[in-house]
Structure formats: C-alpha cells, structure tokens
C-alpha cells in the first residue's frame, strides 16, 4: 500500500523545485520603475504626472495624517496687506494667523507642506527628465515633454526661492545615499530656473499649436511669462524687456475685453490666460489627494449659508486701493448687499460673521458644482497663475527701467483700458474712470498700483512687495493698522523670507541652515 502513496511524498520536493517562481510576485495593477518608461504612452503619462502635483493644494504630507492646505494665496495674499486670514476665528488655522502677524516660527506644518509639495513636484519632473531621453519615440514630441517638465520644475523652484531663498538644488532622482542635501544659494536656484525656462521656451509649442482639449499644457508663452517674471524678480530689466517683448510680439495672447469674464468658468483658459492650474469639479469625490478639484472655492467662500470657510478676507486697505469707480473692484471683492452668485445675498446675518468683504475671484456658483452629496465640494475654478495683463505690467516695469517710457505707458494703458471697458479715457466725461496716465506722469508707483488692483487676490502681493523692496514699510503700516493694540513687527532682512521648516533641517542632518533671524 505504501507504494501508492510514495508519489505524495514527492510533493515537498516538487514544491521546492518551483519555489522561486512561486514567491516572485510583481504588481499587475501598477508597474514597477523597472518595467515602466518604455513606450510613448508611458512618456506621456510620466509627463502628465509632473502636472499632478500642481493640483495638490490641500494634500497629505510625510509625517501627517490628514490633509494640509498650502494655497498660493496663503503666502501671496493673507501674509500681505491685501487680506486677513478669516476662517471661524483666530484659532482656525493658527499657524497662518501667526505668519500673518510675522510671529510664526520654523515648526509646524504650514511651511512643511509648502516645502514637501514643491519637492514632490520637482521629483516627478526630475524622474521624467531622467527617463524621457531613454524612451524611443518621436523626438519633437519628446522635446516638448522635456520642455513641459522643465517648465514645471522652474515653477516649483520659483515658489521655493521666493518663499525660502536658497534651497537644496535637486535635478535628478536621489539615491538613498543622497537624501541629505545642503542648501544651494539663491543665485544657483535662479540660474537653474533661467536655464530650465530657456530650454522650455525653445522646446515648447505655442498655445495655438495645442488642440482645445490640451489647453492647460505648458506653452512657449507660459515659459516666456515665467522667465519674464524671473528677470523682473532679479531686476535684470533688459532681459526682462526682451522676453516680455517676444511674448507680446508673437501675438499669442490678448486681453479679454471683459475683465469680469476672466474669472468666470467661461473665462478659463481665455485669450489672456498664460498659465493656469487646471481644476475640474467632476472628479468623483472630494477631499482626497489625487482629485482634480480646487479647495480655494470652499476656503474663500463666506461661512453661514454659503457653506464656505470664509478665509482670505480682503482688507479695507485693499478696497480703498481701487480708484474711484474702478469696475474691477466689484469683480474682486464681495461687499454687503452683493449677490454671491446663485448662493444668495451677502448680509452679515447670512454669513454669521462680522466681516465686510469676501474674495470673489475664486467664487463659484452652486450650480457649477458637481453633486457628490458633499456640501462643500472642491470646485472647478482654475488657478490663474499668470495672466497676460501681468506680463504687460512686467513689460511696463522693464520698459520704465530701461528708459522706454513710452512703451511702458502703452503697456500700462492696455491694462487700464481693458479695465475701463475698452474705451479711451475721456476727461470731459464725469463718469469716466481710471484716468489715462501719460508718459510724462508715469512713475513706477503707477505700475505697482496697477499690479495691486489688477492682480489682487491672485497670490502676488506679498512677493511683489518684497521684490519692490518696500515690504518693510508697507507691512509695518499694515500690522499697525490691522492689529491695533498689539505690537507686531515686520523685521526687515528677516521677514522677507519664511523660515526653513525645522523638520527639514533636522532631516538634512544639519546640512540645511536656517534663514537669518529665525
């Protein structure tokens, strides 16, 4: 009888012989790095992944469970004299409240998320830039992909260098032995930004070369615009002039005749849109990291019946900055008695809060939202990072700084004329608004003023003040006005930059040094 069962005793032996295969399992859903990056389709997917991080304005970061916001308007607007934090009270996002009063320190997660998300975006770009050259595919298409990755990398480094100053310069995927990186100088970061953008300007197609369904991809124009901005921040005005002039002369962009249309859903990717972070409302859910909606809508909408969180409240100072009758004010700020789209009339009672102003540029109508049963779903509103009017204003600055006052005046007037409704200013007409500023009168203050009101609440103000060298005076006045009774100080030479997150200093093994004054 035992013979019959002998074959069974062989079973362990058989198992041994095939064990190697039995224990080798690789993911079939999802690939590994080793077997991805082969085909043109892989190349596209790797390139699109570079864009994905742009949408992660509320996201998970390392070492935190839960989503953390890091909106561009936190830094550009809330910190500045244009808006106050808002929310349900001072305790609602206390870190932002601290930074708003220049009381913030290097601990906490608000800056950490800014840092980590920027480097996450850079990592995808670095990976794409490493892998794309090895993929067999159409070279022009590949060059365009490389241009996109370089543009997005420049976008992130621009945010980093303006927020923190010199940061670690990482241009390739890091091996585990290379995780600890020292700071590079700000000049080295700027140099990389310029190099990346030069390549991007060369490789990227014009916006008109993309199909309608590709709108939102980085273009030659968006690279030119960011390069313009870069030169402006570096005050390399001749280069700034040249690049902005190229962009203007190539004629790809024009101002939307109706300023009010720019921030509507129809106005997305409009004629004056140079670089917009794209969002959608129908992403199948909410409040996740990989979903393609914006949270700025919810965060900036009034509380109470408007189901927002009431952040980013325009200050009286900003409202006052608008010239009498400037039509742009109504499209920038909601005031009492205004109708907040289809969500009802703005009264103090309806918001349950005492605030007089709400931001309008990122407002969306309830009817535009996808219905997921979530009362405050993330929205579709694209983030207008760079608009043609901004390039015109940079161009005006560059002209004025390079003794081209007449061109400067033209550029400024183009922006004011559109704001006026496309008409020439008639000094005889008592209802006329936004007077023409002649070459003779034109000063830098006119251009800076125009930037403030034209681009209000779009995340530029604080960085502009720093760039313009007047953050100290303007911010100190704002602190004194806004927080009466408390003595908060803007320390020049310190508060222009934010502190490096202390977590990152620790993790770098001390290679990263803190900014002075923190």
């Amino acid at each position, binding site marked *: *009888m035992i013979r019959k069962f002998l074959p*069974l005793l062989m079973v362990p032996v058989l198992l041994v012989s095939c064990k190697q295969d039995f224990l080798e*399992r690789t993911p079939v859903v999802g690939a590994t790095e080793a077997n991805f990056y082969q085909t043109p389709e892989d190349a596209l997917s790797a390139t699109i992944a570079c864009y994905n991080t742009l949408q992660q304005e509320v996201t998970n970061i390392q070492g935190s*469970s839960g989503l953390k916001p890091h909106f561009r308007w936190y830094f550009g607007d809330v910190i500045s004299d244009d808006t106050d934090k808002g929310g349900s009270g001072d305790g609602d996002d*206390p870190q932002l409240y601290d930074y708003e009063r220049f009381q913030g320190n290097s601990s906490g997660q608000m800056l950490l998320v800014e840092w980590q998300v920027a480097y996450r975006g850079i990592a995808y770009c670095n990976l794409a830039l490493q892998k794309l050259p090895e993929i067999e595919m159409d070279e022009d298409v590949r060059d365009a992909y490389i241009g996109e990755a370089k543009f997005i990398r420049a976008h992130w480094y621009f945010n980093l260098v303006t927020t923190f100053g010199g940061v670690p310069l990482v241009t390739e995927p890091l091996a585990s032995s290379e995780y600890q990186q020292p700071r590079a100088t700000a000049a080295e970061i700027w140099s990389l930004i310029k190099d990346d953008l030069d390549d991007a300007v060369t490789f990227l197609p014009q916006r008109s070369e993309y199909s309608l369904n590709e709108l939102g991809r980085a273009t030659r124009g968006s690279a030119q615009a960011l390069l313009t901005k870069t030169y402006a921040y570096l005050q390399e005005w001749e280069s700034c002039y040249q690049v902005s002039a190229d962009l203007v002369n190539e004629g790809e962009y024009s101002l939307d005749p109706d300023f009010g249309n720019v921030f509507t859903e129809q106005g997305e990717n409009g004629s004056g849109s140079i670089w917009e972070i794209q969002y959608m*409302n129908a992403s199948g859910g909410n409040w996740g990291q990989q979903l393609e909606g914006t949270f700025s809508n919810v965060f900036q909408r009034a509380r109470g019946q408007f189901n927002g969180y009431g952040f980013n409240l325009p200050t009286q100072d900003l409202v006052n900055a608008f010239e009498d009758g400037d039509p742009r004010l109504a499209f920038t700020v909601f005031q009492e008695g205004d109708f907040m789209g289809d969500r009802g009339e703005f009264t103090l009672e309806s918001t349950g809060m005492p605030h007089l102003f709400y931001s309008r540029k990122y407002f969306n109508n309830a009817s535009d939202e996808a219905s997921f049963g979530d009362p405050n779903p993330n929205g579709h509103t694209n983030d207008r990072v760079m608009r043609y009017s901004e390039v015109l204003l940079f161009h005006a600055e560059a002209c004025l700084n390079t003794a081209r006052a007449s061109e400067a005046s033209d550029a400024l007037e183009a922006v004011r004329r559109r704001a006026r409704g496309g008409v020439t200013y008639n000094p005889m007409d008592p209802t006329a608004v936004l007077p023409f500023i002649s070459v003779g009168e034109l000063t830098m203050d006119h251009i800076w003023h125009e930037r403030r009101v034209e681009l209000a609440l779009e995340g530029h103000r604080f960085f502009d003040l720093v760039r313009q060298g007047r953050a100290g005076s303007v911010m100190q006045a704002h602190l004194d006005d806004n927080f009466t009774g408390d003595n908060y100080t803007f320390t020049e030479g310190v508060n222009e930059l934010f502190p490096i997150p202390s977590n990152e200093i620790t993790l770098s093994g001390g290679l990263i040094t803190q900014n002075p004054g923190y």
Partner: protein
Amino acid sequence: MRILLLLAWLLPVTGMFAQSLAVTGTVTDADDGTPLPGVTVVEKGTYSGGVTDLDGQYTIMVSSSKAVLTFTYIGYKTTDVATGGKSTLDLPLSADVAGLEEAIVIGYGNQQRSKISGAVGTIDLKDATSVPVLRTEQALQGRAAGVQVTQNSGQPGSTQSIRIRGTGSLNNAEPLWVVDGIPTGGIDFLNPSDIESISLLKDAASAAIYGARGGNGVILVTTKKGAKGQPAQVTYDTYYGIQEPWKKMGLLNAEEYAILMNESRASAGLVPYAQLADPAALGEGTDWQDALFQRAPMVSHSFNFTKGTATSSTAIGGSHFAQDGIIGGEKGRFERTTFRISTQQDAGDRFRIGQTVNFTHIERNALAENNEFATPVVRALNMDPVTLVSRPDGSYAYSELIGSDIANPINQVATSYDNWMTNRFVGNLFGEYDLSQALKFRSSVNVDLSLGSQKIFLPSYDLGIGENDPNRPAYEWREVNGLIRNENKWSNWQWENTLQYDKDLKNGDRIQGIFGYSALYGNYQNIGTYRDSLNSNDPELAFLDNSLNFNEQAPNASGGFGESSYLSSFARIQYEIGDRYSMSGTVRRDGSSKFGANNRYGIFPSLSAAWNLTELPWVIEKDWIEFAKVRASWGRNGNADGIGNFDFTSVVFNGQNYTFGPEQQQVNGAGPVTTSNPDLKWETVDQFNAGLDVDLYRGRFNIVLDYFVKNTNDMLAVVPVPGVVGFLPAATNVASARNKGLELSLTYRGEKGDWDYDFTGNLSVIRNEVTGLGEGGTPINTGGVFGAGNDFSAYTDIGLPMAVFYGFETAGIFQTDEAASANAAQPDAVAGDVIFVDQNEDGILDENDKTVIGNPHPDFTYGVTTNLKWKNFDMSLFIQGSHGNDLFNGIFRYDLNTTNLPVSALERWTGEGSTNEHPRITHTDANQNNRVSDRFVEDGSFLRVKNLQIGYTLPDRIIDKMDIGKFRFYVSATNLLTFTNYSGLDPEIGSRGTLEIGIDRGFYPVARNFIAGLNVTF
C-alpha cells in the same frame, strides 16, 4: 477537539487482525462505581481495541498474555493495565479532576495539559450552558489571562480587536486565526456554536510553528466533530433577545443651550441668534439621544448533528443569527447564516480521509460610525436641542444653528442604505496514512473563497422648506441620487504536507516529531462602480441600469488585483522523559512574496521545557499538592500579515492625473508614490516565558502563573526622509518595542450536597514600551481629533507606551484679564481662558510644550466567572474590567462653536473665582481653549457585569418521558451593569488601527441585552 483526534487514529476496526485471546471486563467510575459506557480500550501498540457498551462492558482480542490494555475516556485519567494472561479485567477508572490529561490543541497537534511547556490558554465552548456569544471574539473577552478583547463598535457585526500579550507592533497587532489547521482571515464566517474549543498560543515557543505569521499570538479554533462510535445526537439552541442602550450622556437642554450660546456670541462681540433670544421659552427641547437610540431585537437558531459509526464520524451544523442595531434598527441589521458539514472516514485501517465544507452568508447593513464628522452618534450628541426632529407635517427638520457636518441624525439614518453581503466558502480535504504505528503522513488542501458585495444607495432628499430655501444647510440635501456597487473577491488556497512521528519508548519516554511543508497563495480582486441620476429614489430599484445616464460611459469604474504567496517548511520535536520532563524544539522557515528580494526567507526557532515537580519527595509529602509544573520557553516569531503585497517595491501608479481643456478631460499620469525598500521583511518577535502550573486539593484549585518578556524588533515604521526626496518614504524594519507582563489564572471548583460551583478569575498586567524608532526616526503622531483643534492626540515615542495621549497640560483658568495678559506664552488669552503649561518656559506655547497627558493602556485587566449549580438550576455570573486606562473624549465638535455641550459646560467660568476647571464659552476661541489637552483625558477604568445567566434543566424523569436527551431554558443579561467614571456613552472603546487606542469620537456604544434561550438535545 480534546482527545477525539487521537481517537480517530488510535481506533481500530475490530477484528482486522486475527487474535487468539479474548479479554472482557467492566469499566466503572472509581468514585461511585457506576458503569462507564464509551470507554476506549486498546491493546497498546496495536490497532486492536473496542468500546465499552452501555453497561460499561467490553470484549477485546489481544495478541498475547503479555498484552497491556490502555483505557481512555474523556475526563478520566488514561490508564494502562497489563492483562497478565487474565481473561477478565475490571477497572475502576479515576476522574481527571484537574484535567491534567486533557488533550490541548497546539499548533499542528495536541498535547496533554500536564506536559505542555509553552503558554497556551484554552477556552471551552462546547458546554451549551456557557454564555451565548454573538461573535467568536466575545468568547475570549475576559476569559483568558493576557488576552485583551475590545469592541471596535457596538454596531451589530462589528469586529473586535484582540491583543494577545499587549500591542506588539506599530502596524498589525491582531493575532492569527487558525480554524482546524487553516489560517483564516478573521473568524466572521464561523457560527460560535460550531466551535468546540479554542486554544490561545500566547508565547513565542508555542506560536513559533506558525513562523512569520505567529508574532501576535495564534488563536486555534477547533470545531465540533463527531466521534467514531458515537450515537446520533441532535442539538438545537435558540435564543431571542432585546437590546437597549444602557446610558445617556448628560447634555444641555434647549434652555441651557440658548443661555450658553448667547453668552458665547456676546463674548465674541456678536449679536445673539434670533432663535435663542428667549431661552426660558425653549424649555427642554429635543433629546436627540432619545430620538436616535431604540430597542432592537436579536434572534439565533442553531442546529448541530453528530454521529459516528465504527469507521466514520459526521458533524453537521446550521445556524441563523439576526441582530438589529440600537441605532436605526434594521438599518444596522446583521444577519449570518451558516452551514457546515465535517466528516471523516476510514479507508482501511491505515488510511483516513476527511473533509469539511463551510458556507457562510452574511448580510450587514451599516451606519456610519466612530468618526467625528458625519455619524449618527456624533450628530445626536452635537446637534442643538432647539431643532426639532421633524416638523408637524412629519418631514425631518434641519438646524439653522449648525452647518457643516452636524445634520439631523434621524434623517441620516432614514436616508442611509449601506449594505454589505458576503458569501464565503471555506473547505478542507485531507488524507492521512499510517506509514507505521508511529509514523503517519498527512496531506491537506484548503480553500477559502470569499465574495463580498457592497451596495450603497444615496437617495436624493431635501429638508428645505420649499424650493431654494436659503437657510437650508448643505448637509441637509442631496440633489442627485447615486448608487455605488463594489464587488470584491478573495481567494486563498493552502496545500500542506506533514510527516508525524509519535512513539512511546521502552524506557517510558515518549518522542514526537513533525515535519511539514506548506504552500499558501492568496489573491484579491475588486470592481467598483458608480452611477448617479437613478430614475427612482426607491432603494429597491437601485440598480446601475436604472440610471438616467445609462447611455453615457460609466462615470466611475475601478478595479484592482493583488496577490501574495508563502512557502514554508517546519519541524518540531517533543521529547518527554517519563512524566517528569518534557521539552520541545521548533523551527520554521517562511518565504513570502511580500518580502523584499534581499530578505525573502526568515527562520523562526523556539525551545521550551517543562519540569513536573509532582514526583519530587518534598512535593509528594504535601498531599494537598496534586500537581505542580514549572516551564520556560524562548522563541522567535515573525509578524508579516500587516505587510502589503508589494510594499517592497516602488509601484508606478496610474491616476496621477491632470485635467485639460474646457471639457475638463482627465489625462492619465503615472509615477511612483513611495520610495522602494528591497530589504523589507517581517517584524521579529522574540519572547521569553516562564510559567507555573499548580493543582491543589485533588485538582479542585488550579493556579496558572506566567511571566513574559516580548521584544518586537525590525518593526516596520516609516522613518521620514528629507522633503527633497520628493516621494513618500517606504516603511523600513527599524523600530522596536517591548511588552512585559504577568498573567494569573485561578480556578476553584467544588461541590457540596446538591451544590456544584466553580470560580475562575484571571488577571493580566502588561507594560508596553517603544524601545526604538530607528536612526533618524521621529515620534509618530496619530489620532487627529477634529473637535480638538484638528490636532493629533496620540503619540508614539521611545520610552513611552504606544499611542499615549499627548498634548498640552492645563493649569486651571485665568481668573482675571491681568493674569492672562501677564502670561506671555498665551498672547490671545483673556480672563476665563485655559492656562496651558509652557513646559520649556520659553515664553512661547508651541509643539515643544506638548507632553504626555494620558495612557490608553490599562494597568491591569481582569475577568471573574462564577458558575453555580443547584439541582437542576444553574447560574453563571461573569464580571470583566479594565483598570487604569485613560480615554480621550473627542466627542464634541468644539470647532463648530454652536454644537450642544455636555452638562459640565454649565459649570463654565463666568467671573473671577467661579471655577478653575471649565473655561468660558466663547464663539471665537482665540486662545484655542479646545486644543488637545488633558481637559479631554478621562479615566477609562470600568467594571462590567458582562453576563448574568440563570438556567433550568428539566429533570431526567421528565425528559425521559419526552424521549429527549436534555432540555434547558435560561434567561441571560449581557452588559447588565457597568461601573465607570467615564462621561461618554461607553468606556469599552477599541482601537482604530494600531496606534489609535481609546479615542472616543462618538463611539457607537455596546447594547445591554436581555436574552431568553433554549438548549435541547435529542
């Protein structure tokens, strides 16, 4: 299982071997002389044997006059008697009062209790008089030292978390379930009444034979089987019960609420809400707890059939169990139907085959639970008492005072349709062949197929008054209905081959060995779909095809696949030197596809030994000592079940999408999310155990004492990498933890006249400590609580127990504005705000000032069971408790500033000297009074009368007439009384993940049950 398995292979087919000598005799109880039917009589070393008849008589053919007969009978001492050529041999058999010879199920076999050298706990479930348990895990609660069972929710069908000897991992700390030798994911599929016994392998030496999966301890479940030669027996057990909530939280009534809200608004310089202008007119208002909780029924039927023939045995079981929720009734219904058949047959005298088939059908309706965002409990506790449940016309009302998250919980329950249905098939087929008397080969194939379907219907509704009601909060309407359907499939198979050796040596020693080889494979697949705009709002008509969007592409479909495999070999040798010493050595080698390429195989050894002191002269002298044994063990296990299938690699995931163009077209992006870790491996658990088993006074009094030190190394933790890396760090095997503990079990059993009684108590003291987080490792923050500043409340760091509560220490209340402004660390504080301790005295209150504010781990846990029998009455009382553990009360949504509040809010600060405990009520809370602090930490100790049961068994004279075997009915109360100082709805709060222990986010409380039941045996 006890001795039945042993019987299964010892039992011969009488008459297979031609014999010459016949021996007959009668076996009786040594105590009272009554004949014992069913005693197995075997000639030692042969297959020859028989069973005593109803009069205790047997006849057996033996091979020679030197033959030795072995008499075995459950509950009696196994006895060897030499025939000495006699043809008649009567034997009085002594009862094994202390159960020394009880065969305890251990991994891959069983062993006499008196010989066991590891730490193995047992729970006997086969006694029908034991407490009816709704879930198998419940049977472990408070019953075994070193085992902590806590419910994760009171909702019917919820799982319970089990920690054997503390939390041994930062990741998966749940033990491995093994049912009749098959590792199973959970125990849901089994009807508790199909279970005969449960063994708990607590120390590493006992669990080492499960290698890489035994690190959290192993729970071996043995199901009911028939025995050979056993007459047919049918049992039917049923009960019906009513569940009810046992506690209500003290909350503000409408008038009190209005007064406090007006104060809160005023303190922030805001005008009062118009609705609250006249508090006195609001009266009591709505009691949302009364509105939410209800009584709910439950019912259980189970049926078992067992029968044996000379060559086979069969067990058949069927059951149905249904339980409604104390919230939502049938919206929280759990139903389980099981069917099971288990048989074994002899195919010749050396070959046996057996098979088991389980089929389980589970349907579960579930309501959202245990988070602070949108669950009925948290809504009922936070909803303002001014709002009505429903308007006079019957439609549900909404709150005009609270917006986000807190909506009408009664409407939520009414509009919730979340159904989960599982069909699970677990099957086993084995063949066993005796190569010789001592050596047998066994091959076993197991399959486990589980199909889980989820259906969530989201009906459209609108609580607004009329169209476009501007005050309607967003949480009170859904414009477009939708349907989610998810299909999941888990398939596992295992093929295991063992060679087992068991020989009694001539010198009285015994050697047992096992060598085995096992392959295990599992995969998981799922499909998820969603459509909105169904043409009907009737949940019965909720099918994807009924969508008005039918012709459009499915807007949302997903699906995935994952697989893993294990390949293992293992060996164990047990050696017994007479009755005095026993020792055991085990080694297992596990390979798994889950491990990184650099660490594909792990080796897990163990050693244990026991020394029976009973024969020592100084013990023999003391005749009150029946038995004494000391034992010690060391072993190494792995913990691998928490590792994901492909955690070792950096997977390039699709779905890193981006949207383009006016039509918002999504384009797929792909990239890795984490770094890879080719070194990934199991967590290593090393454990030393020393124990003492003592039976005193003829076995009436048992003591089991164990001390253990359990070190977990190579624990998977995520060590942060610098942000410049860009990808999230993969978990690496860097962290370590230690659990040390003492376990004590005491049993006393006795009888006096018509009274039978026994008392069992157990006590566990476990100390948990994190000993390492890896180089560069940082403390782990978990347990974010939204109501408390949306900050973390739990903290894991070196030198502390896992997941201690962490936050700010408070030092009373600022009594004056001067005192507040004098405190530089709290610039926004005014009189009435909380004083937080600036631990480092740097004048700034920040992360660095957080400190340990509570410990969720108990100082000790205990259970006490008392069983009494008097004539035909029986009574059992089971008390269970936990002492010294803290709970974090995160029930209230302070971030929303208009929620209802606990009555303690009435003692708020209202002026200098009013209180130094409760801060003022303020709408804006600039001082963040409600940030995570010791204000929310409460003593979670409790003592619970878990069960009280009284039964009556009909006397024999009656049941004899009715021609049935046994007829018992009983009444029982579960969670009858609870003594605790905790203010929430339930102090017995489980964990959410391993590192969130005892955080109450509006916990779904366990119900108090009253049950009436019936046990009938035919």
